[in-house]
């Protein structure tokens, strides 16, 4: 399973803070995102934002980063702390 976490406006709009996704083989983050977009028009819209950021296993990652079974993927908008 791949654990996927959502934060901030994405978490709110998707009404989901985390989900589990079966992962038969390693995939890039963008492939995972494309798969998630198929869930509904809403998910398609929200996950299509140009500035979608991601972290893999709690480190910032690129959309080309490959995730595998047991990994934690997080999707979120640009950060605004400080």
């Amino acid at each position: 399973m791949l654990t996927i976490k959502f934060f901030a406006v994405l978490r709110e709009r998707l009404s989901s803070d985390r989900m589990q996704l079966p992962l038969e083989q390693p995939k890039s983050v963008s492939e995972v995102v494309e798969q998630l977009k198929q869930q509904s028009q809403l998910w398609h819209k929200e996950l299509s934002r140009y500035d979608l950021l991601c972290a893999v296993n709690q480190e910032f990652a690129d959309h080309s980063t490959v995730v595998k079974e047991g990994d934690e993927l997080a999707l979120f908008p640009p950060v605004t702390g400080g």
Partner: protein
Amino acid sequence: MLKRIKVQTEDFDLEAEYRQLNDGHASGAVVTFSGLVRDEEGQLLGLELEHYPGMTEKALSNIVDVAKARWPLHAVTVIHRVGYLKVNEQIVFVGVASAHRLAAFEAANFIMDYLKTRAPFWKKEHSVHGEPSWVAAKASDQQAAERWQE
């Protein structure tokens, strides 16, 4: 180097943090930055701070390590509050102790710039009218962080 990273709902105390930065030896130069919830002409009630538990402290710790590799530092403390913070409340503290004034200034400035763009925090504004809304990332924050790339 002494490194202290805290992500907490509670407030922090500048004097206590300053004392810890100086603990043991006088570094010569101590720079502190405190970020507060700004009163936007009475329109803002407060901010809700969301973060990514597990990743947040790691991200802050990485930022401090980058600073440490770049400047000669004796001690660094980073505190970031989360949860609901009212106008005038403290949000973030960065304290740096060094033998060198310029190193202390630059490292504190750098840590804040990186924290703003590379630590998983998100702010939601609660104002006197309308629904709470998520704060948009600022291009100026991105530019501020980029000036440290040589």
